[in-house]
Every structure is written in C-alpha cells, then in structure tokens.
C-alpha cells in the first residue's frame, strides 16, 4: 500500500507542483519573518547591551502621550555628583541626549535620515558605551566642535572641517566637524552628532545644570540589581526611573524595534494570506487528483484495501507534499530574510553584524505550517477518497461529472451566510465602537466562509451572466467555454475562491481607505481656514524658532502655533483619561472653523481654561464650568475649568482622546519647553497667497524638516499616507493573485487532460488551434472574473460596514473607489488570460489522433 502511495505521489508530482509552490510561499513568509525578527532582536539586544550603563537614571516617565509632543524631559545634572558618593558606585556620568534635532549641511540639505528615524545629538563619552569608535579626527572639545557618525558622513559626503548647522529644540547653532566615528556594533538607522558634554547640556538642554539622564557604573563586586537598589534608595522611591543595564537595553530595543516590528507583521500578513489561499489550492488539487483516480482507488478497494488504507494513502501523499514544501519554504525563507535585511540596510539600518539568527522556533514553525496546512487541506479530499466504492473500478465513468448535489453546501452556506449577514447588519446599526468591531469581525469571517461554501452554487447564475455575451461575441467557442466553466461548479467555485478571498480583502480595504480619505478631506474643508500650514512630513514637532522666523516673514498675517502636550485628566465620573492636549495660540478662529456646542474659542483659550469634545463630555458627565484636576508631564498638576464644548466630527482622531483643546499660554505654563507641531499661517491683508508662499519657502529653506502646504497639499499629504497603507494591501493582493493564478492553471490543466477526447474531436472537425486556445482562455477569464466579482461584492459589503464603524469614530463619509473596482475586475480578466497561457498551449499542441483514438 505504501509503495502504491509513493508511486502515486511521484506519478502526480507535476500536478502537485503548483500546490507545493503554495506551501513553499506560505512557509517562506513565516520562516522569513521569524528569522528576520530574531535577527533584529539579537542585533538590537547586542547594540543596547553594549551601550547601556550598569544603571541608568532617567526622569520619571509618568505619562505616555499617544503622539509625539517633542518635549525633552530633563533632571538636574547635580544628581551625578550625589550618586558618585553612593557606596558601590564607581562613577556617574551626565547624559545629554536629544533625539529630534535636525542637522543640515552648507546647502541646507539634511544630514540625517528623512524617513522618520531620529537624528540624535548627544554628549561625547569616552566610556566606550557610546556604541561608536572614533575612526578619524579627534573628540569634540568645547563650543563649535562635533563628531558625526560615519554612515551619515559617507551618505552626505561630510568631511572633517565641514560646518554643519544643528537645529535643536532650544535653538540653532553651528558646529565644525572635528571627527568621524563608526558604529561598533550596528547602526539602528539614526544619525548621531556628538558634542562635548557641557556643550551638549548648554546647547541642547539650555543649561549645564540639566541632564537627560545619569549613567552609573558599578564598582567591582556590585551587581547591577544591587546598584539599582542603592541608587533608588539614595534618590528616593518614585522620583526617577532607575534601570539596570538589562532593563535599559530592553526598553531601548522596544522603542527602536517599532519600525522593524511593522515589517514583521506585514510579513506575517503575507504568510497568512499565502496560507489561506494556499489551502484552497491544495484542497482543489487533491480533490481533482482523487476524482481522476476514482477508478484506481476503486480497484484498490476491490482488491481488499479498506477505507482507512485509502484515506491514509492520501494523507501520506499530503504529508510528503507538506514536508517537501516546508523544506523548500524554509530555504526560501532564509533567502527572504536575507533580502529583507538588505532592504532595511538601504534605510540605513545595518543588521546582521550578529549574523543571521535562526532560532529553533523557525524550523518548528515552518514544518508546522507546511505539514499542518497540507494535511488539513487534504483531509476533506481524503475522506472523499475513502468513500470511493469498489464498484467505481468497474463503472465506465470517464470524466468526473458534476458530483453529488450541492444541497448540503446550499444549506450550510445559507445558515452561515445568514449568521454573517446578521452580524454585519448588527455592526452597521451599532452605536458603540467596541461591539461594532466585534460584530464586524464575526460578520467578515462568517460571510467569507459562507461565500466559499456557497461559491459553487453561485457559479451557475453568475457565470451565466458574466459569460452571457460569449456565445454572441465568440460563437460556439464562446458557448463551449462558458459551459465548460459551469461543468463542475464545485471545481469552478474552489478555483475562484482563492481570488474571491484576496479581492474581498482588497475591496473592503479600498472602500475603507476611500471613505477615510473623503472624511479627512471633508474635515479639512470644514475646519481648516488657514492659507498655509507649516508642518513636518512625519508630524515630528519642530523648534519654536521656525515659528518666529515665519512670523517675521513679510506678508505674513496671522500665525497660530499648535503644540501638543501629554496630559492626564480626572473626570467627574471617576475615570482618568491619559491623552494629549492641543494648545493653540490666540486668533485660532482666523485659521480654523471650529464648531462649538457651547462656549467659544476665546473662552476655551483663556488661561486656566479647557475645551473638550461635546460627546466625550456628555459621556463622562463633564459640563461647562466643571473643574478638572489635570496632570502634566513631570508631575505638574493643574485645575482646569471647562469653558467650551466643541462639536467636531473627528475630534478624537489620531488617538487624541477627548479632543482636549487649550490656550498655548496654559499649555506652556504646565508643559514648558514644548515644540510646535504645526503653524497655521494666513497672508496679511493686501498680500496674495501666491507671493506669500514663495517668501515662506525662502524663509524655511534652512529648515528642510518642515514644508509649507496649502490646503490641497495638506490633503495630498494625508492621501499619500492612506495610500501607503492601501499599497500594502495591494501587495497582499498581489500575493493572493499569484497563488490564485496557480490555482486556475492547475484547474485548467486538469480539465484539459480530462477533456482530451473532446478536444481531439473538436480539432478533427476543424477547430483551429487559435480557436481552441481562445476557448480555454475564455473559460479561464470567466472563472477569474467570477472570483473577482464575488470577492469585490463581498468586499464592498465589508467596506460599508467598516465605514459604519469608522463613522462612530467621526469618519462619516462613505466613498466607493470605482476606479479601483473597475481596474480590479479588468485585472482579474488579465489574470485569467495569463493563467490560461500554459494549459491552452498544451491543449493546442495535443495530438489529434491520440486524442480521438479509441482505447
């Protein structure tokens, strides 16, 4: 029996090739993402382990704002002296590190990365914990000298002696490059500028009495944990964050790994879709192989093989396929990880100094996915194989017919579909976000299952319609291709399912994306009254000096600064909300159209006052005149009076819960040293917006980190950011399509083999090769378009439901990306054409005589 199975596997290896490819793809993505993330973790662990002091003292991190506020938290530098006297401390150094400086060269070009990774200015330490080693020049001494990291120097061709401008939150200053330093372990993607420590304190923090942290070295025989305890005791509990080297490395790695984590999740997304779509392909292939071998299986049964043996033989075949696929997939995953490491290398992140890391979990996961998926997918066909009766060996069933009636499917599809529709309907009418999201998830999963289950039933009516014009357009060739697609609805449904799944996802995301885009547009139209916005592309806050320069530019009228600050507010209903508040300068009304449910801008921005979203206020029992205890970064406390309630569609967008709004004066009082997030600029009366723009751009030329945008530019910026997300989804779709194409190729190839006699006859009675190829192509196209239409229909429904959920968050507009939808359907037709290439070629090359010869 085993020998028969092995022979069978080898005999069908061509058929299994495509399924195997699906397994390889899924496993490759799983293995690749694991290897990549293991390598990232190892690299950064090493980096931060080598740079962390035995114990680090930092300002207490009491609030975690959802957005970057740009605030630099400091502690007194004198702590270093205090800590040096603590028993067990060998030395205590002052740290002065500021993460969001901008360094520009003589031509006003940024020296650091522009992708959102930080440019870090810091004090030079000779302790060997800086993570860099001086490769040329000398260490910085006094004012006006700096050391630049070698990667940035190389990228921007900066040489020793060049003059750079450093724009720090506290102001702008020039430095001369005194030395170049190379990273000793790895470059996490940022640019580094070193100043001598007192200069760093003075220039970056505004005073030599301040520091961003204290690095403490342990004396011999004192463990980090012990040292942490002693330092903590000396400072008093809860006043500062004290971390051992291990803790510090961990938290630093977690902060920096965010961007790389995104890559990991994207990769796992790819793996997920590859697995999902691959399952359909494998199920289909095994089903078809078994349908083809009904006779052979019947013979085995007639010769005395029991059901279990037949089932096992299919399982063993699946196992072999899974093992082969997983092994190849693991190898492909290693290649993929290497490619990814090279890719992030182009962003300046050099990984792999620690070598590629392949943990034990990687092969385990690879084989679990590869073998598990294949085994699972082959389960149903295996059961069907076991059900083949010995009589099948004697029957003269030449071509596998349409199979058993689809009643069970109809029933199951209807039940699951009804449940899914119910969940989606519930989601659409839900009034609170949390239950709506839950219902949406359930609805999406259930309707997807229902569509896949009922696909074969939908094939008949839908393909009748989709291929309805074929007979008229292509004559009998069109008629035959349409009917061939309907011949085995089960097979057609399963083949199209791969495309359906991918396109449903894309359809849903495209609707959501278009709706968000339109909502944001609408909000910009409704609320933004400024001629220009000055802002960083990645929303990183910038130095107030830029605002001063803008204000001083001729032709500028009103300039309103926006600043963000972390805040925690205790609410009357007993809740505490940790969020970020927006502080605006006066004359906010001139640059925006805020709607108020109660109060007005003047009241909201008055000292000690606060405005919040009316809906949020209602939920938490806040009224005009309520006095709310608030807490700012660094433990500063305030009591703020609610003076206005805003009525904004998207008050809580970007995670700014509560839509808190206060005057810039109030904000600066409790959160001093903040940076500007945006400047809203109007032209002065008598100055055209056009000339002002040119002047502003001239003013901002030395500040490449910020740009001037009018409303259209601003919308475009937002659109681009949404588009990045959609592009990711389209990439996922791309993978789904690749696998779906494999599925269509598979099905067509098998159909061509099954229909050998028919094709032979058609050729004999005069069907030209070209016509034959067209027949197969049309069949392929109609299957692909069927899958696409089904998927898009489902996706649109999902998209509408997603939009309903977003509407609860203020994104009220609904938009359908018709262009995308049309393009996707056209793309599906193209996919059909591509998938038909090989099977059609094979059919047209078929020997007519061999095809019609009687057995």
């Amino acid at each position, binding site marked *: 029996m085993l020998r028969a199975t092995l022979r069978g596997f080898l005999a069908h290896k061509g058929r299994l090739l495509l399924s195997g490819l699906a397994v390889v793809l899924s496993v490759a993505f799983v293995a690749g993402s694991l290897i990549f993330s293991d390598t990232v973790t190892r690299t950064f662990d090493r980096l931060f382990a080598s740079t962390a002091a035995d114990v680090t003292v930092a300002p207490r991190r009491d609030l975690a704002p959802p957005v970057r506020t740009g605030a630099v938290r400091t502690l007194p530098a004198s702590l270093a002296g205090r800590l040096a006297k603590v028993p067990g401390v060998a030395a205590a150094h002052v740290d002065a590190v500021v993460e969001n400086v901008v360094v520009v060269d003589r031509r006003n070009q940024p020296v650091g990365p522009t992708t959102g990774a930080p440019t870090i200015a810091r004090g030079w330490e000779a302790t060997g914990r800086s993570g860099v080693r001086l490769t040329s020049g000398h260490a910085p001494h006094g004012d006006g000298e700096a050391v630049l990291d070698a990667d940035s120097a190389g990228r921007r061709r900066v040489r020793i002696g060049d003059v750079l401008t450093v724009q720090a939150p506290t102001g702008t200053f020039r430095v001369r490059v005194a030395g170049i330093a190379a990273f000793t372990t790895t470059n996490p993607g940022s640019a580094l500028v070193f100043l001598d420590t007192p200069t760093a304190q003075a220039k970056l923090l505004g005073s030599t009495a301040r520091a961003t942290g204290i690095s403490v070295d342990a004396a011999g025989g004192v463990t980090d944990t012990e040292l942490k305890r002693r330092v903590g005791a000396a400072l008093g509990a809860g006043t500062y964050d004290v971390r051992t080297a291990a803790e510090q490395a961990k938290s630093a790695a977690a902060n920096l790994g965010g961007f790389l984590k995104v890559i990991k999740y994207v990769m796992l997304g790819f793996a997920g879709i590859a697995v999902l779509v691959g399952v359909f392909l494998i199920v289909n292939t095994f089903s078809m192989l078994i349908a083809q071998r009904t006779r052979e299986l019947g013979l085995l049964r007639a010769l005395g093989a029991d059901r279990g043996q037949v089932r096992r033989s299919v399982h063993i075949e699946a196992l072999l396929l899974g093992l082969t696929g997983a092994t190849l997939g693991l190898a492909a995953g290693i290649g993929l990880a290497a490619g990814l490491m090279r890719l992030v290398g182009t962003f300046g992140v050099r990984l792999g100094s620690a070598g590629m890391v392949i943990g034990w979990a990687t092969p385990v996961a690879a084989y679990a996915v590869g073998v598990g998926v294949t085994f699972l997918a082959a389960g149903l066909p295996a059961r069907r194989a076991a059900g083949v009766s010995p009589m099948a060996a004697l029957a003269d069933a030449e*071509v596998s017919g349409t199979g058993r009636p689809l009643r069970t499917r109809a029933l199951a599809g209807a039940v699951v579909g009804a449940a899914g529709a119910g969940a989606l309907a519930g989601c659409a009418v839900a009034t609170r976000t949390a239950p709506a999201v839950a219902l949406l998830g359930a609805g999406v999963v259930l309707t997807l299952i229902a569509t896949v289950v009922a696909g074969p039933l939908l094939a008949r009516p839908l393909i009748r319609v989709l291929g309805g014009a074929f007979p008229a357009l292509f*004559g*009998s*060739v069109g*008629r*035959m291709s349409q*009917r*061939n697609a*309907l*011949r085995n609805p089960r097979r057609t449904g399963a083949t199209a399912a791969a495309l359906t799944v991918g396109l449903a996802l894309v359809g849903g995301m495209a609707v959501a994306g278009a709706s968000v885009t339109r909502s944001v547009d609408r909000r910009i139209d409704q609320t933004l009254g400024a001629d220009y916005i000055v802002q960083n592309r990645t929303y990183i806050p910038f130095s107030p000096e830029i605002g001063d320069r803008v204000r001083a530019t001729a032709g500028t009228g009103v300039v309103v600064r926006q600043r963000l600050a972390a805040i925690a507010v205790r609410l009357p209903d007993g809740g505490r909300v940790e969020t970020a508040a927006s502080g605006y300068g006066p004359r906010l009304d001139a640059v925006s159209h805020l709607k108020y449910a109660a109060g007005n801008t003047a009241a909201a921005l008055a000292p000690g006052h606060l405005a919040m979203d009316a809906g949020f206020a209602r939920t938490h029992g806040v009224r005009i005149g309520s006095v709310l205890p608030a807490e700012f970064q660094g433990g500063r406390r305030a009591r703020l009076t609610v003076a206005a309630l805003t009525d904004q569609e998207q008050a809580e967008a970007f995670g700014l819960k509560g839509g808190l709004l206060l005057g810039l004066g109030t904000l600066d009082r409790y959160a001093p040293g903040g940076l500007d997030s945006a400047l809203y600029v109007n032209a002065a009366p008598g100055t055209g917006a056009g000339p002002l723009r040119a002047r502003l751009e001239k003013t901002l030329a030395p500040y490449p980190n910020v740009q001037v945008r009018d409303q259209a530019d601003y919308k475009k910026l937002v659109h681009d950011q949404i588009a990045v997300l959609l592009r990711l989804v389209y990439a996922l779709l791309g993978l789904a399509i690749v696998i779906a194409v494999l599925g269509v190729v598979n099905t067509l190839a098998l159909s061509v083999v099954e229909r050998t*006699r*028919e094709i*032979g*006859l*058609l*050729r*004999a*009675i*005069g*069907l*030209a*090769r070209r*016509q034959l190829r067209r027949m197969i192509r049309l069949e392929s196209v109609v299957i692909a378009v069927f899958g696409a239409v089904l998927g898009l229909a489902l996706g649109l429904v999902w998209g509408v439901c997603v939009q309903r959920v977003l509407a609860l968050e203020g994104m009220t507009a609904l938009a359908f990306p018709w262009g995308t939808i049309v393009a996707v359907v056209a793309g599906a037709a193209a996919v059909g054409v591509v998938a038909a290439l090989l099977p059609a070629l094979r059919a047209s090359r078929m020997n*007519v*005589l061999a095809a*019609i*010869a*009687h057995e």
Partner: protein
Amino acid sequence: MSAHDAAPDRTRPDGPNAPNAPDDSDRVAARARGLTKAYGAGETAVLALDSVDVDVARGRFTAVMGPSGSGKSTLMHCLAGLDTVSAGQVWIGGTEITGLKDRELTRLRRDRIGFMFQSFNLIPTLSALENITLPMDIAGRAPDREWLDQVVDTLGLGNRLGHRPAQLSGGQQQRVACARALAARPELIFADEPTGNLDSRAGTEVLGFLRDAVDRLGQTVVMVTHDPNAAARSDLVLFLADGRIVDEREHPTAETVLARMRRFAQDGDQPGGPAPVGRPGILRRTSDDRFTRVCDAVAEEA
C-alpha cells in the same frame, strides 16, 4: 474507390507515380498515391501503410475492412488529413493535402470533411442541435436551414434537438454525430467504426442513414469497420492487410465479405505476402481475437 494494385481495369492515363493529381475531382473525392506511413524509425520501424494507391469515388459508399493492425484506421486518418504521411501524396478533391500546414489542414477538415467515430464524440456541454451545427459555428458560417431540416428529419432527431448528449441513447448519439457529419454538406464523410459501440438494431439504423446519405443526398462516405454486416451495406469493400490493399469487392454481401475475411483468418495474416520492411511480427501480433470472434459470430448467424 478502387485500389490500384488490385483493380483489374487501370483505365486512367496517369500512373500511380504521377507528380500531380489529375483534375478529375468531379469523379474522385479523395486520392492517395504511394501513401506510406511508418511508425518509429530504424530497427523498430513499423509500416502501417505500405505504398497504398487508392481513389475514393464521389457519390459512393466505400467500406474499408481488415484485421486489427492492418492499417485501415491509419489509412482513414491519412486520407482525412488527421495524420501526417511518411511518403506519398494525398488529395481531397483537387487539393493536395500532403504538405499542407496545420492551419490549412484544419480549415480543410472543417469545410470539406465530415467525421463519425466509434465513441460518438459529441461535446457533452452542447445540445444535440449545437453539436450538429458545431463545424459551421466554428467556421462562422450559417447553416443551410433547409438542408439542416432535411438531415434532422431523415435522422428522426426532430424532437431531440434540445437534449444534451447525456440525455440521449447510444443510437441517438450516433445519429447526432451522423447529422453533424452531414449538416455541413462535406465533400466526404469518414466514419470510423460508427456501429462499434451500438447494439445491432441501432447499428443497422445508422448504417441505413449512411446508405440514404449516399443514395438520396448524394454524399460520399468512407467507413472503416470490423463488421461484415456493416460492410455489406456499402458499394465497395476494400480489404487491407499489413498496410496494403489486398482485395476489393463491388456490391458486397455479408457472405462474400465474411468468406474473404475468413481467408485472412485461415491464412494467418499474410494474404498478400508479408510486409517488406519493419518487423512484421509486430503487426501479426496485433491481429486480435475480437476480429475472429466477429467472424465466427457472423458465420453462425449466416
């Protein structure tokens, strides 16, 4: 049809080796000269057809008989342009088809030849009517309604036109195949064992239709068969053995055909001498018991 190496009257001016076909296509529907077909090469080469010369007369019903492996199907395939020839020339009407490209051959089959096969070979997804008009649909021609009605009437398919092949009996399916072959009014119909898969009643019926097609509709039919009773319905029977035409009978009866076939069975397989090249043993081995069985069955009936 007459086989030149066996026919007594060789009245035509051109010899078998004439470089071009004589223009008597009004009389001859298909013609082969020196038609040779070999499978394989070198030592293992097998001659399926050994320099066959043959004329298929227009408006007649010709049967080709012979033991299995005698080359009768190969002869038909070569005449119909389904198979390539190793040597020699073949004409359909006035057109030499040897040397035609696949596209031209396909068009020729589509427009000028009709086919019937043992296993019916209907397209399962098409209705009976769609199957019948398929060759014309492929060509993009509209069928001649009047003729189509006549064919459908003759074959008694009027109330079956909307059915799919799976809903028809074997005899009905073969009648549809017959209608398909006739519907386009081809110059020539090739029928490969058309009664092979039918019971005797349905077989007789189909043979009757083919006979009618020749007598009443003026068609030309070439039929390859095992069955002496089927051959008896033809105007002329050609006997093939070992790739050569070894005999022929005008206006055959089942008895005369059977008697001739019996001689093959008794003589072994070498009624006309052994095939000169290749390994004749392979050919001999393929002569099957089915043929002997048929002969015996017919003898018993007689």
